[in-house]
């Protein structure tokens, strides 16, 4: 069951994992919102590399296009539109209690993960070891995602388009200037 990974693979997996962690830590500790946003983009690039290493090439491309390309550009756009690029004058951090609660939640989460990963995976549901790579060969990187998306999850996929429409309408209504009139 346990696959042997070549050293090249393992090295790059750990490399991008360390880059993602270091960038995420830099991201939460930056004072300036622009610097934080750029560190978050770095994290997302590292995670997209991890997606490619985990046999999800299409998701990796989507990650770069949608997250790093679209969502983060919107964030930077808003930061610069509202002129928030400078570090805030008042202290940005909250008090000691919030930090303690956050650290406590982190410890609980890590404990849960350790319990889960020490347990055994229910074998009837486990795919054969090379399942992901084989499916990639058979259907291609896009087909692996597209086949279930357009068969089993077609209804959810169509509802997603409704969600996006609602989001567009909501953003326009919220972002509109109110010139005295109601609405």
């Amino acid at each position, binding site marked *: 069951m346990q696959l042997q990974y070549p050293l090249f693979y393992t090295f790059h997996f750990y490399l991008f994992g360390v880059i993602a962690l270091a960038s995420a830590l830099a991201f939460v500790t930056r004072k300036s919102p622009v610097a934080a946003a750029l560190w978050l983009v770095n994290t997302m690039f590292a995670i997209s590399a991890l997606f490619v290493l*985990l046999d999800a090439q299409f998701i990796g491309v989507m990650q770069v296009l949608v997250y790093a390309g679209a969502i983060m550009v919107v964030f930077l756009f808003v930061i610069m539109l509202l002129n928030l690029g400078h570090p805030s004058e008042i202290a940005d951090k909250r008090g000691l209690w919030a930090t303690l609660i956050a650290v406590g939640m982190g410890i609980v*989460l890590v404990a849960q993960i350790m319990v*889960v990963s020490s347990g055994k995976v229910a074998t009837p549901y486990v795919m054969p070891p090379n399942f992901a790579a084989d499916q990639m060969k058979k259907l291609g990187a896009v087909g692996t995602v597209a086949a279930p998306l357009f068969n089993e999850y077609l209804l959810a996929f169509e509802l997603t388009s409704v969600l996006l429409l609602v989001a567009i309408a909501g953003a326009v209504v919220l972002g509109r200037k109110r010139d005295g009139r109601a609405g």
Partner: protein
Amino acid sequence: MLAESLALSAALFTIGVVGVLTRRNAIIIFMCVELMLNAVNLTFVAFSRVYGATGQVFVVFVMTVAAAEAAVGLAIIIAIFRHRQTVNLQNINLMKG
């Protein structure tokens, strides 16, 4: 690589939680939520290697919801900024009793 991916995504998620709880800038808190969504996506992809490609489909859905959430949330932040001239959550306590 499943255990390593899960550990990494737990660490990233925790960093996001710490950011949400300790920062006061609304935009940075919002970006921390995006980081948490990314960590969950990593979990989905890691499990999709073991349980089949359904996890990758879920990642597509999560990305769509994240995009919708970013659009609406940033519109709300812009609307708040117009009223209060700040995005510091310390000063935004309209709903406090």
